Structures are given as structure tokens and as C-alpha cells.
């Protein structure tokens, strides 16, 4: 009967309109304040430190470094993940508060890299964690890491935070 009187469209305005605008605003706030965990394992950590340093400044994007996983949103896995370190890495990831993201930095974190054939290296951090952005390089330049952060920000901005069911 409602269809007959064509009242469906008028009575039920797009419920997602307000939520989409709110989503955009919230995602914008979340994307511009991505705090990362200092997770430097090997040589890529030096490039991570330099990206936070004066020449390639990550603080421009609002990214602070935090020492504790409870207060950080992003874990940049910088360096080789060995079998000994892997359970601790997983534990730190579990301790992070939702919503959380992971960037795999460098070829060792992507797929084991140079140490791919070794017996004690995890062949890529995505075997133990869900990775959002992969970043090649050995080690990647600070500008490459900055670009990875920008790509992550774009991913966050497209997330449906309040409208989860679509």
C-alpha cells in the first residue's frame, strides 16, 4: 500500500545522508591524527627515525610517536621479523586499541626480503598480522614512508565507520 501511494521515498529519506556526512567528518579527524608506535626492529628503523626527524617530518601530518601500544593507532613494522620476535609482535598488536592499522615497511616486512630463505625469519609480517599498506624498499626513503602514510590516510578517509553494514 505504501508503494501504491508512492510514500516510500518521501517518508524514508536517505538514512545514510547524515551518517555519511558524519562519517566523513569523523574519518577526517581520525586520519589527521595517526599516532604511531615506535616499532623499530632493524635497519628500516633508522629510516623511520629519520622520517620523524627534521628533514622528513611526520609531525606535519599530526603523527606523534607513542611508546605504549595502548595509545597508538598505527604500528609501522620496520625491519626483519624473526621467529623469536614474532609472538611479542603479535602481543603488541593485540594490545593496541581499535581502530588500528599496520604498515609493513621494507622488503623484510613485506615478504622476508633478503632473508627469505632463512630458517629463522618470518616470511613477511602479513603471516602474523593483517597489513594495510605495503611499502617496498631496502630501506625505503623517508619520502616513501611519508607517501605510505598518505595512502593510509586516504584509506582511513574512505572507511565506513558508522555505516558498517554496507
Amino acid at each position, binding site marked *: 500500500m505504501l508503494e501504491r501511494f508512492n510514500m516510500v521515498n518521501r517518508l524514508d529519506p536517505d538514512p545514510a545522508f547524515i551518517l555519511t556526512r558524519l562519517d566523513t567528518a569523523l574519518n577526517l579527524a581520525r586520519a589527521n591524527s595517526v599516532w604511531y608506535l615506535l616499532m623499530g626492529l632493524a635497519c628500516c628503523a633508522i629510516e623511520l627515525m629519520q622520517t620523524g626527524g627534521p628533514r622528513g617530518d611526520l*609531525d606535519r601530518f599530526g603523527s606523534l610517536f607513542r611508546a605504549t601500544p595502548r595509545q597508538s593507532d598505527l604500528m609501522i613494522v620496520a625491519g626483519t621479523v624473526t621467529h623469536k620476535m614474532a609472538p611479542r609482535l603479535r602481543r603488541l598488536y593485540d594490545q593496541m586499541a*581499535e581502530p588500528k592499522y599496520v604498515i609493513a615497511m621494507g622488503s623484510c616486512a613485506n615478504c622476508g626480503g633478503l632473508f627469505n630463505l632463512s630458517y629463522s625469519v618470518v616470511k613477511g609480517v602479513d603471516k602474523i598480522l593483517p597489513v594495510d599498506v605495503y611499502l617496498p624498499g631496502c630501506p625505503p626513503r623517508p619520502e616513501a614512508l611519508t607517501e605510505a602514510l598518505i595512502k593510509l590516510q586516504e584509506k582511513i578517509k574512505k572507511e565506513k565507520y558508522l555505516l558498517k553494514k554496507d
Partner: protein
Amino acid sequence: MIQHNLPDMIYKFLLGISGLSAIPDFLLVTASYLIPSAAVLGFVMFVSGMLTYAERKVSADIQNRIGPNRVGPFGLLQMLADGVKLILKEDIIPDAVDRKLFKLAPYIVFSGTMLAVTVVPFGGPFIVADLNIGLVFIIVVSSLIVVGFLMSGWASNNKWALLGGIRSAAQIISYEIPAALSLFTVVLIAGTFSMQKIVMSQGPYPWDWFIFHNPFTFVAFFIFFISSLAEINRLPFDFPEAESELVSGYNVEYSGMRFALFFLAEFANIFISASIAAAVFLGGGNIGLDPYESGIGFQLVMVLIFFAKVVPLCLVTIWIRWTLPRLRIDQMLSMCWKYFIPMSFACLAMTAIWMLVFNGNGIFWRMNG
């Protein structure tokens, strides 16, 4: 007749609005106390956010880089983004913590800070409660923060948090003594504990301020400033929340909005210590006119003068943080008990002797009547 009390002024104003006199009296009185409190609370939260932004920009300038500049024009919306993000984070309460204490700790730290805000004289008539024991109230209320830190350290069920909490408690209680003693130096000269009267007994010119009254109040100002740095857990007394040593100390297990309360309380504390120092030693908000009887224009000028004194002190706090390395806990406590307490006692005693010898006149200062 103009009341010498901000809530009373608001009460008379509300009575003057027609239609509101029908509301029972106690509600109007409550409203006239709630309105300035809420306004001041909101304002201090805003200032606290601006201080986080200022810290990032100043630290970036000192370190040859640029701080946040992409978020708004010159990065001014960064604090808004940080705040919204912290609200949206998941609230983690680990399994093995003491739930009541864990949840209560940030609120106690926050309340300690906000209680101190009610007696800060913002210049002109804008002080929420002009208690006649205002100065003592501030010293007492900042001890509430110790309880909050101890609770968070203990309840987090984490050895680093416990160490951080205990060290923080030791540090804050030790440094309250020189802070209080150096403030009492000024009380000897002003003769009252009330914040508004302390501000009013100074004068508009720099040589009328209490800091230049005698050389001992000059030293007392620096002792108070450094002790208040220690009270708010700020570098170089940063041990309880040292990032490289204690993985954020008592903050370790807090995420989301609870952490935001700790964070905001720390920066609000910077603002409060700077305003107490400015009001008590630097004559904050005094331009030689009566704050209650002057027109609104002069009152706003008083507020501006007050902020012109507070903002440089906040910037100096941030500047010190990025200059000095962190003190070890034993160095910090030995500095307090072996150097600051004797020095502040000496300042207090010598000021008392000075007041006796010179009949209350300072080096540039003449006692009014």
C-alpha cells in the same frame, strides 16, 4: 551597588532580567555559581588544547623542523583532530586491573586540576570564587593529583606503571614544600591569602610587582617556578612518565578518553602554575584600577594584561622541556630536600626580617598606608 564577587554580580544580573525572578532563589544562586564555573572550565580546556598545539610547534621550531601544518591553516585544527580521535578509540580495560581504581584515577587527577582553576584570578572581576584562603586552597588541591597518580599506578597491574606512580607521588609531595614556602613569602608582604587581594596589592608597573620587592622574593619566584614544574611532572622532572625509560609510566594501560583526561590535565596544570606565578609574583591583571568598579573596557584590558604575563611563562615551560635532560629520581629528590627547601626557608625568614627592618617597604615599593 556593585558586589565585589563575580557570582553575586551574575545573580543581580539574572534578577534584573524580567521573567527570571519567578524562579526560586536557590536555583538562581546555583546558576550564578554554575555559569562562571562552566565558562572557566570550558575556557581552560580550550587553553589546554592550544598548549598541546603550542608545544608541538615550539618543539618543532627548536628542532629545526615544522610542526603540524597540514590539518588546518597553520595546523590550528590539530587539537580538534586529536581530541576527536581519542574519543573514538576503543576503551580497553585490561583483565587484571583493579576496575574501580582504574576508572576513578583519571577523574581524580582531572578534578584536582579543575578545582584549582576556580581560584585563579583571570584579571578584572573574573575569578570564580574569591576565597579568603585562596592560596592555601590551591596548594591543598594540587595534592589531590598525587592520589590520582598513585591510584593509576597501582591499579594498572603493571610494574612500570607502579614504579611511575610511586616515583610521581614521591616527587610531587617533596616539591610541594618549596612551592608552598615560596608562595608564603609573598603572603608576608601582602598580608592576605586571597588571590584577588594579592593581585590588587601589587601595582601596574614592573617595579611594583612582588618579584622586585626584595631580592628574596626574586629567588622565591624561581624556586616556585621550578617546583611547580616538578609538581606537574614536566621535564626536567619527567621521570614518572618518561617515554624512553618507563614506557609512559603511569599512563601505560590507559587508552582513548581516559588517556585524554590525563593528557589534558597535564597541560591545564601548566596553565594553572603559570597563572599562579603571574598572579602572585608578577601582578597579573593589575592596571591600577579597581577591578569591580571599572567599566567593562578596562576589565577586558586587565584580562589581556594577565594573559600577556601568563603566555610567556607557558612558553618558557615548553622551552625548558626541550632544553634540559631528565633528572634521575635520586638527583631530583636530593635537589629538593638539600637545596630547594633550605633555600625557600631562607627566603621566607629573610623576607620576614626585611619586612621588620624596612617597615614593609621594598626596594622600589612603598607600602600604601
